[in-house]
């Protein structure tokens, strides 16, 4: 089968998988004005459980892994996060009609990682029996924090240049890092990781976190779909180029991630599934923890621009591109 028909068939197959169906379902009911909604407390709990699950799974696997084989992918993840933001700061942020801070903040979100997109990819790989190293999801913070830090530093440097003379205080990177780590999403992931690493959570992992994973993810997709539709209105208020960036960005970033993942495959033997997950993380844009970090640190940027672009278009496009990377992997690695 040639690459194109491989992609087409994987794509059609995945569209039928429930996870994406729930995303579209959420958009649909929002578009039809339904009053169906998921209570906030449930949504927050689902996020915590999914991230604990991802962390626990990764932690359990890291125990068995060699540290060396982890190091290269971690560095690649951080490079990807940095590079995506730099690209955005030279392309989107320099486009006429786009305020520099808005552009950089948007690039920051697209460089960072969406936990829900990552979770969907994990489910799709499992369903397609494409194996991956259990610790790959633990690369998330490396890419995520790198992207947010770079975006915030670029924006603050820019503001400082404008306000030159007014009370020069240094840009401190460390508080941005700790603030990110303290957010509920990364905290849950890391907590799971530590418990998975140091304790023996296999029993509760297999009796609770693992079986509930897919079901809770389907509810999360519903919420994401509703939100994606509701934010479309905001996006209409900002320049068109955001929509273009939000469509093209995820695919370009994902393919970049795939390429660097291939390097990790050649150097330290990263599995085909691992390469796909790296591509997915690069292609995804942060939805839960990135936005508040950016709003607090770049108050001058317009949140409608970057959040609208990310939630309404970036995340759906990133989710729809997962089958692309899977098809690529099947084609290249013949898995």
């Amino acid at each position, binding site marked *: 089968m040639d690459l194109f028909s491989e992609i087409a068939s994987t794509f059609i197959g995945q569209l039928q998988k429930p996870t994406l169906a729930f995303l579209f379902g959420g958009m649909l009911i929002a578009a039809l004005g339904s009053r169906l*909604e*998921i*209570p*906030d407390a*449930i*949504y*927050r709990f689902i996020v915590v459980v999914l991230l604990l699950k991802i962390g626990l799974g990764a932690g359990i696997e890291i125990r068995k892994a060699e540290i060396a084989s982890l190091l290269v992918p971690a560095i690649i993840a951080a490079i990807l996060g940095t590079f995506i933001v730099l690209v955005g700061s030279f392309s989107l942020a320099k486009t006429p009609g786009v305020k520099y801070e808005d552009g950089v903040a948007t690039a920051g979100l697209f460089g960072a990682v969406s936990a829900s997109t990552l979770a969907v990819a994990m489910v799709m790989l499992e369903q397609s029996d494409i194996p991956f190293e259990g610790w790959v999801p633990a690369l998330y913070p490396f890419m995520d924090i790198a992207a947010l830090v770079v975006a915030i530093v670029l924006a603050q440097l820019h503001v400082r240049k404008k306000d030159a003379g007014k009370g020069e205080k240094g840009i401190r990177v460390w508080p941005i890092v700790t603030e990110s780590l303290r957010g*509920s999403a990364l905290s849950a992931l890391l907590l799971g990781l530590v418990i998975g690493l140091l304790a023996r959570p296999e029993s509760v992992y297999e009796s609770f976190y693992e079986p509930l994973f897919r079901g809770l993810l389907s509810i999360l997709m519903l*919420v*994401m779909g*509703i*939100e994606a539709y509701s934010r479309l209105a*905001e996006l209409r208020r900002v320049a068109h180029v955001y929509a273009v960036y939000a469509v093209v960005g995820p695919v370009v970033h994902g393919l970049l991630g795939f390429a660097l993942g291939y390097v990790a495959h050649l150097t330290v033997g990263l599995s085909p599934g691992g390469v796909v997950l790296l591509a997915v993380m690069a292609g995804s844009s942060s*939805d*839960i923890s990135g*936005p*508040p970090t950016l*709003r*607090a640190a770049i*108050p*001058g940027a317009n949140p*409608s621009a970057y*959040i609208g672009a990310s*939630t309404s278009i970036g995340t759906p496009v990133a989710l729809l591109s997962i089958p692309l990377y899977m098809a690529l992997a099947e084609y290249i690695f013949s898995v």
Partner: protein
Amino acid sequence: MTIAAIKISVIVERFLLPEVERILASEGANRYSTYPGGGKGEHSTHPFDAASVVREFSIVKVEAIVLERATAERIADKIAYECLKDQSGIVWLEGVEVLRRNKF
């Protein structure tokens, strides 16, 4: 026997709470209450109990009662012109009558 006092009310998104708290504390107002809410403003609509993907953007109301009008005005000014300069949110004052002076 009631004592005249001033209630400062602030509506902000949750991620600004630490900032509001810092300003209150800087004027010695270490007591306040918070309430979950939703709303519609210049910027967007916030549901008050449906899932909002970014929890830190949900609406919170802060109420702090202080005895001195001057303190209340200083706090309101700082919140309006420092904390909320580039952010969405509103501030207002109301006269109230409290009982038990020592509690404020």
